[in-house]
């Protein structure tokens, strides 16, 4: 596609000059591959910058090129899935690119998600970990409509707290078991 089409899109969305220059600094095939997604899904500048960051960094790390990344079957199947609207397609493409960009982080997040599911907590209890796992703390929230329900949820939480699965969640957050450091205490 022509450079002018990218300029038109960037102008219509009010992109900063740096964003446009960066895009136009890519190889023509890479420019086109991103343009297809950007125009098709009406991607805003903030989302576009995330995509550009991740695509450039994946390409650098894997010694690949951006158009090849965007032609991978996982992306193609999202782009062509008739069940998904624009916003969902963009969300899923970003999730997929993030998984490729941060494979080990994504793998830990996924394993924690699976472990949280395995705890089989009632819907009233929400257990989550911080974005990017930074801080290493598990956040727990719950709501109860009666004293009886409250007591029941506390019981379930207490059960979960002593579970081996919960221990594994905390271990995942802390990079494994700590080593002893006897000399500085």
């Amino acid at each position: 596609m022509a450079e002018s089409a990218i300029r038109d899109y960037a102008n219509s969305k009010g992109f900063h000059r740096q964003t446009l220059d960066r895009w136009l600094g890519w190889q023509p095939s890479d420019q086109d591959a991103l343009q297809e997604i950007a125009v098709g899904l009406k991607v805003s500048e903030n989302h576009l910058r995330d995509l550009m960051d991740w695509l450039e960094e994946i390409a650098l790390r894997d010694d690949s090129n951006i158009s090849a990344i965007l032609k991978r079957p996982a992306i193609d199947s999202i782009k062509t899935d008739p069940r998904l609207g624009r916003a969902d397609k963009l969300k899923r493409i970003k999730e997929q690119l993030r998984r490729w960009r941060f494979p080990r982080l994504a793998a830990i997040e996924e394993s924690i998600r699976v472990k949280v599911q395995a705890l089989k907590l009632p819907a009233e209890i929400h257990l989550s970990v911080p974005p990017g796992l930074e801080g290493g703390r598990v956040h727990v929230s719950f709501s109860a409509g009666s004293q009886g329900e409250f007591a029941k949820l506390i019981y379930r939480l207490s059960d979960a707290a002593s579970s081996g699965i919960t221990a594994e969640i905390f271990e995942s957050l802390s990079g494994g078991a700590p080593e002893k450091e006897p000399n500085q205490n």
Partner: protein
Amino acid sequence: MRNLQFDEVVVERGSESSPIYRNLRQTLAHLPFTIVDHIGPDQGTNSPVDRFGAAKRTLYLARHKGEFLKKCPGSEGQVCCNYFVINFASNCPMDCSYCYLQEYLADNSALKVFSNVDDLIAETDRTLARHRGVFFRIGTGEITDSLALEPYTGMVRELIPYFAEQANVLLELKTKSDCVETLLDLDSKGRVVVGWSMNPQRVIDLDEHDTASLSERLNAARLCQDAGYRLGFHFDPMIEYPGWESDYESMIEQTFATIDWHKLAWLSLGVLRQTPGLKRIMRERYPRSGLLTAEQVLCPDGKLRYFQPLRIEMYRKMARWIRRVAPTVKIYLCMESRQVWEQVFGFAPSCEKDLGNQMAPEIQQTIHA
């Protein structure tokens, strides 16, 4: 380490009486010297391409008009080591791809050395004298390398005799150079720590441009130790890449095979970190650097770091390798949260004073006796 290449020296009028000027005239006699009335903040930054890199080609000598001695700003929300800094120069002649000065000094990137050493000493003396019961760890490597310019300026040689006589201070000279020759005949009386920022040779080759090699740094450390200086090592920024473990473990073994760890003042660990703004600059200046592909997340202090479980694992491995060869050496983490301290060491300092006080306890005992 190769000699630094400058195109010229620009001197602000009034600095000609400084010992630093005299040293520069001797050591850089082959360069043109220009005397100007005023050196502004944007001096040295008018190159059309890579302004920051181009600014390293001209050496400026000027009076410093502000305060020399400041508290290290640390990083918001992170455990602080109660460090003070003296800035006797601004910007660095070396060019690490991750260097935070690329962003911090983006609008003031002239490579400047300050000529008023007498003011620096007088200001420091007022502070140290006013607080004789307080122990000061002072570094000179916050916005410059402490020793890279020493063969030309002789700045540190001017400072050491003063600091050697102070009871309540340790002066740290932090460097990636091997420029220690002018220090070796001075008696620091145990008041000066020469600290090296350390990385495996692979990282030096890829991302620490114009710095001394690992072997050169270690040889220089050994010379300093033999000359009576205390040593510090900063394994910072640690870089994670496939095979990093064997490179870092070998580096630690090489380090502790070269120096006597009993004479180490301190040792710090830190991981690669940068603001998103610095990352944008790195992308422009070093678009092929593998550092751009690190698995980093944005932390509450606004800096990108390796995601927490990964860096905890890195710190634990480093601490284990260090402990194996130097069981009781003091290790601290630079710009890390209490949670990470606790996960790595099983404890966190109760406050910044607590951590600062753990450094050089024998000097603490002297001043509190």
